[in-house]
């Protein structure tokens, strides 16, 4: 499928190393436009004050965790259309189910591979294109 060149990602993780890894992988996949936030609160502020197309978020973060961010995005009429892909070390089944029920577009457990990230992002993009 064709990748929209100006597609803008927001990568949310409290570990700068992981933000750089996700950013690097997205670049390799073909998405070069990405910004970073260190927790949910910072991310929500950025989302409300900028234009983004895709959110990749960790769950376990200080200030505002990924679940709270996901719920805030889905409760905001201006943001609820945004796909949110959870990339997290949380492997409890109840967390995975809660994320899906809260509106997450996908769920990746760490450690993950480039192929997994690429597959999930492409799948979400295909769904978006189909429903657009």
């Amino acid at each position, binding site marked *: 499928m064709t990748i929209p060149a100006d597609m803008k990602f927001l990568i949310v*993780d409290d*570990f700068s*190393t*992981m933000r*750089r*890894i996700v950013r*690097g*992988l997205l670049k*390799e996949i073909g998405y070069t436009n990405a910004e970073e936030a260190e927790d949910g609160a910072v991310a929500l502020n950025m989302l409300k004050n900028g234009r983004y197309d895709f959110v990749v978020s960790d*769950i*376990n973060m*200080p200030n505002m*965790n990924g679940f709270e961010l996901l719920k805030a995005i889905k409760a905001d009429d201006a943001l609820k259309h945004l796909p949110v892909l959870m990339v997290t*070390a*949380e*492997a*409890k*089944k*109840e*967390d*995975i*189910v809660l994320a*899906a029920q809260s509106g997450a577009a996908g*769920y*990746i*457990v*760490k*450690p*993950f*591979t*480039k192929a*997994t990230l690429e597959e999930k992002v492409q799948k979400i993009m295909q769904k978006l294109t189909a429903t657009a």
Partner: protein
Amino acid sequence: MSPDQLPPMTMPAASPEIFQQLGTLTRQLHDTLNMLGVLPHLQSSVDNLPDARSRLTYIASKTEQAAERVLNLVDDAKADQSHIADETRKLAALIVADPVKAVASGAVMNFVQDVETTTQRVDQHLTDIMMAQDFHDLTGQVVAKVVKLANDLEGQLVKLLVQAAPPEQAQRVEAALTAALPASTGQPTLEGPVVDADGRTDVVSNQSEVDDLLASLGF
């Protein structure tokens, strides 16, 4: 008189009154600590120590794996780089000797294809080295859990110390130690990386289990 000829040493037997008093004091101390909530918390912190041990083992294992992986990938990348350098020198010699023959024999085109294949491989090594750094996130979360446990344990021991201090010193000790203790971070009860998934049915152990779970729920 040799040592084995000495009469055996005996402790004076405690009188029944002293024994009774010691028992009462011990019971009072136990009840007081329980009432103050020190013992249950202390017990809970101590119960978490085996978990802290398995978390530290997880950190040691993750960091070792990451270091090994990176060193192996660097070895591979250096071998590829060395191969390109060798081939470049050989081609340069061929071109200097006979430029027309170097092209006509296919040596130049072979070199170009070789460089393309090798650089793709080096690029993959670099991606893998980048991915290996995920140990920082995974172990960092586990370190935070162990630090929290150490803080909890310290807090409970401080309470115990304050209770045991003479009344005139207790307030000063409490004020000094409370100031020194870090404030609670109010972290949510998220579990972080699973350090030991054996025998657990409430967690997934890989991405395909996540996908299966979500698919079973219609997501």
